[in-house]
């Protein structure tokens, strides 16, 4: 028994990389979470349009400020509408000019809320913060008769039935395909080396590029079928919200799968055993899950983390998938073109990197 105990410790001592991973990775992940959650914080950005000619609007506005749940900017209705349409803010709250008058005469409080709608959590925060502020403001009004509160909510994207699954679903389609294809490729390419067949391939008339591209085609075929399955299941069984083109969703996830294949080949060059290849999973996947905007919107990250987020391929796939599925974007959108371009660029870059490392192993 002690023999096993000491043997395991001896093996760890030899395998420096595993040791480093065991002790460094948890700190990195926890620090990332720290910066993501303790950072500037996830207060939704909201434009406040107060056209009220009476006092009620500003009383509620003050209550909203005190509530400190939202990051508020006073502006005009036209600017606010433009901000929401461009996705610069999560919502605008509008008190119309007859707001006070109707509150005092008809006892109806009727603010207007226009939600950008692609982030259900932000939408929820905006609506509940407004409700709290109105509650606080109105209960403080002396001797007032009971008010009828009627918040008129409208959505740019999604709708009231749009939930967290719809928000995460789009991103997870990209993640699931990327993750599984990466794992399968890196392990199977490593097996090619450990069983000696790679040596044989290298001593064959095949060129390095042909080996890499051949591999990519093989796994891309499997990834193709997997993407079809994942997308059909998400859209038609789980009924995840989609207002865009299915073909475009498919294109993005397929490109993602291709870059995963090449990343798998590239990284498997740095592993000697399947055990070490598996260790790349937390290294590659976890930071991408945390930093690609799947869970935490990139705009809420500290600036230096945003820089990292912007060089991760998954960031662009996630943003592309969300634009298409939630906002109904098509190929005409500049943001979708950028996302597709960057994912394609990563794929090409990784093919080159994989071919280059294959060559280096030989020298």
């Amino acid at each position, binding site marked *: 028994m002690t023999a096993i105990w000491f043997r395991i410790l001896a093996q760890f001592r030899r395998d420096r990389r595993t040791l480093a991973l065991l002790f460094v990775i948890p700190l990195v992940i926890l620090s990332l979470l720290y910066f993501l959650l303790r950072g500037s914080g996830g207060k939704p950005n909201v434009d406040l349009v107060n056209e009220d000619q009476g006092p009620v609007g500003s009383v509620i506005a003050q209550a909203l400020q005190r509530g400190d749940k939202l990051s508020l900017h006073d502006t005009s209705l036209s600017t606010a509408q433009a901000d929401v349409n461009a996705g610069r803010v999560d919502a605008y709250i509008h008190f119309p000019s007859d707001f006070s008058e109707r509150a005092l005469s008809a006892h109806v409080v009727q603010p207007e809320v226009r939600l950008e709608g692609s982030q259900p959590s932000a939408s929820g925060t905006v609506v509940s913060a407004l409700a709290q502020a109105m509650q606080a403001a109105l209960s403080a009004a002396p001797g007032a008769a009971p008010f009828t509160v009627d918040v008129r909510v409208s959505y740019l994207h999604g709708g009231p039935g749009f939930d967290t699954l719809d928000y995460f679903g789009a991103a997870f389609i990209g993640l699931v395909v990327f993750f599984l294809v990466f794992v399968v490729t890196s392990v199977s390419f490593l097996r090619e080396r450990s*069983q*000696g*067949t790679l*040596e*044989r*391939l*290298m*001593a*064959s*008339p*095949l*060129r390095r590029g042909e080996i890499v591209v051949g591999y990519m085609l093989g796994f891309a075929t499997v990834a193709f079928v997997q993407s079809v399955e994942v997308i059909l299941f998400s859209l038609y069984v789980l009924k995840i919200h989609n207002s865009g083109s299915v073909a475009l969703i498919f294109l993005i996830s397929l490109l993602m799968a291709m870059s995963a294949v090449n990343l798998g080949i590239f990284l498997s060059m740095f592993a000697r055993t399947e055990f070490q290849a598996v260790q790349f999973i937390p290294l590659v996947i976890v930071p991408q899950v945390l930093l690609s905007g799947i869970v935490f919107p990139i705009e809420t990250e500290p600036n230096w983390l945003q820089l990292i987020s912007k060089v991760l391929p998954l960031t662009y796939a996630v943003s592309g998938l969300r634009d298409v599925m939630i906002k109904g974007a098509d190929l005409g959108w500049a943001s979708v073109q950028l996302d597709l371009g960057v994912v394609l660029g990563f794929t090409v870059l990784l093919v080159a990197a994989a071919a280059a490392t294959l060559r280096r192993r*030989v*020298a």
Partner: protein
Amino acid sequence: MAEEYAIEVEGVVKTFGRLRALDGVSLRVRAGEVYGLLGPNGSGKTTLIRSLVGLVKPDAGTVTVLGRRMPDVGILNRIGYMTQAAALYPDLSVEENVRFFAAINGTEDNVDAALDFVELGARRRSAVVELSGGMRTRASLACALVNRPRLLLLDEPTVGVDPQLRRQLWDRFRAMADQGTTILVSSHVMDEAERTQRLGLILFGKLLAEGTAQELIARAGVQRLEDAFLKLSEVQP
């Protein structure tokens, strides 16, 4: 167009970190010859063979194979390389493995002949993972010669192979040599070395002696090749 030499190695040096795996090796193998590379484990045999297929780039010296300066991808379809361990895809059948390596070289018409040559025609549909060790070795050989190589490189082909099968394999190597294939075979097994036409004794990355088995025995002044091997190895550390 027969070059006189299938293999010409001139002053090849290769170091891995502080280890000098090849320390100025020069040797020549005539076309159609069966040449044995004899040496203990770790003497540099495998590094030398890998340099012949361009997988090792020498730090100094030149390697010329079938008239081409290596590394040269263009000549690799004329070379058959059987690695030390049977390098096969375990999930695929014997035939699928052989067909894959045939496809890479564009010689799919030779699959049946290669399978018959190693007498695995009857087991062609079996997955490699179900085969015995000896059958795997034969399947691996079939993959190495399915491209009708003019030069066959065999890295310890009969390690872990029983005496009957070893004899069978050698009969096949002979048959190929008779048809004009040059064969370079590495080994540390003496009875095997005695079957070759010429032997090179390699130790610590250096070629210590070269000649027929008889010549080496005579040079060492002993009775058996094994003793010659041990005696000639004592020359330097």
